């Protein structure tokens, strides 16, 4: 099935790089490096140059922090979406928000995709996506409200819980009117999960891809990588890329990342090992 992300369509076996672009002063990895709008715009130019097919623009730090109300979130992202949309018509513009009010505003400026990182917390988000013919990422958070960390959450079977939750959200979105080709599921590593949960979700990601819904993974520099390797933020690239390779082998298609060029190489390599992508140029032993 074709993957339709707003005005853009991709073959069903495409792998896509979704570059994180933060319009925040306090996100965990870049610590406000692209808080200034022009810096964020430079970041877009850079990731486009590196081959990103999607930019995921966020105006609110995922974790605890300063309150960002809907008006402030809109101030951070709406005009920026319009600017990116105008400058890069071939780029898929995604916005990371859980608020339908913000989603409506950015879709009105041409956003193609709403990344609902907080798992349907605002049930009207799917209606907004449907109304604008935008795509929607649905996620598993274990029921946590936005911007909260897990505390002693346990599951009988974390993967079963993830699949049941995201597939239900996906079917609900389609029932509301989102194009079936435009719904993407994300297990949401670290969200409502301890490190053991995120490792198990990675290990069993094939069960998610087997649902037939396209799978997005957001692994980049996250705590489960840091805890697994005992590495602080800033030293998690290798662990992220190892997890990326496993996920690509399992059939994940969209990779939400800080490091686009490195991830692209790892995903291409894994997909070629899986037999889903030919080598770029092969002559060794074939001349």
């Amino acid at each position, binding site marked *: 099935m074709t993957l339709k992300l707003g005005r853009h369509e991709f073959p069903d076996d495409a792998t896509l790089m979704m570059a994180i672009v933060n319009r925040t002063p306090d996100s965990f990895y870049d610590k406000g490096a692209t808080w200034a709008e022009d810096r964020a715009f430079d970041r877009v130019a850079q990731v486009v140059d590196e081959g990103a097919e999607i930019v995921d623009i966020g105006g609110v730090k995922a974790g605890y922090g300063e309150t960002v109300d809907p008006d402030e979130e809109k101030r951070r992202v709406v005009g920026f979406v319009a600017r990116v949309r105008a400058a890069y018509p071939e780029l898929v513009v995604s916005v990371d928000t859980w608020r339908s009010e913000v989603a409506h505003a950015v879709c009105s400026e041409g956003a193609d995709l709403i990344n609902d990182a907080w798992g349907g917390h605002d049930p009207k988000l799917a209606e907004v996506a449907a109304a604008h013919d935008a795509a929607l990422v649905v996620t598993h958070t274990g029921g946590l409200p936005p911007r909260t960390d897990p505390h002693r959450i346990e599951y009988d079977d974390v993967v079963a819980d993830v699949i049941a939750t995201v597939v239900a959200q996906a079917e609900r979105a389609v029932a509301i009117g989102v194009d079936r080709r435009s719904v993407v599921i994300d297990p949401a590593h670290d969200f409502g999960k301890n490190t053991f949960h995120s490792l198990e979700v990675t290990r069993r990601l094939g069960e998610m891809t087997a649902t037939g819904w396209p799978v997005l993974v957001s692994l980049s520099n996250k705590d489960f990588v840091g805890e697994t390797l005992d590495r602080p933020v800033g030293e998690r690239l290798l662990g992220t890329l190892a997890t990326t390779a496993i996920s690509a082998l399992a059939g994940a298609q969209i990779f939400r990342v800080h490091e686009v060029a490195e991830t692209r190489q790892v995903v291409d390599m894994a997909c070629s090992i899986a037999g889903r992508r030919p080598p770029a140029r092969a*002559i060794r032993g074939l001349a």
Partner: protein
Amino acid sequence: MRVVIVPGALALLPAYRGLVDPVADLRKVCEEAVAWLLEDGARTVEVLGDERIAGALLQGAEIGAPGDALLVVANGSARRSTTSPGYLDERSLPYDEQVESALARGDLATLRSLDPTLGDDLLCANIAGLVELGARFSTCSSSELRYADDPYGVRYWVVCLTCES
């Protein structure tokens, strides 16, 4: 009878195709030569050499013997330089020159006299097929060497001949 010679490069096979074709130039010349081979109305093509490569280039034309046209899959040495697949064997260059000159001129007598054992030592492909070609016909009324190069250290030729018994 029309005769075409193409090299046995495995990179010509669809199974080994990458995103970028490392033998795009060669493939194009091979396809044009095969089109010439068939344009006279040949229905069955006899193949001397690797039938997989012949099949990939013939694209559906029937392979069998006797044929209305002949396709020989053969190539020169893979020991032409230190970066060749078989490293350098200094006998390669004169040997390839001898074969290439004979192909360019349609010199069947020289093809008949080639030493296939030396060809094997030099990692050529199917010199025996070229010897058989030389033996099968008595003259060539036209010869055209359309490709002669060694982009990966192996000597490739694409040749179109019109041969008579």
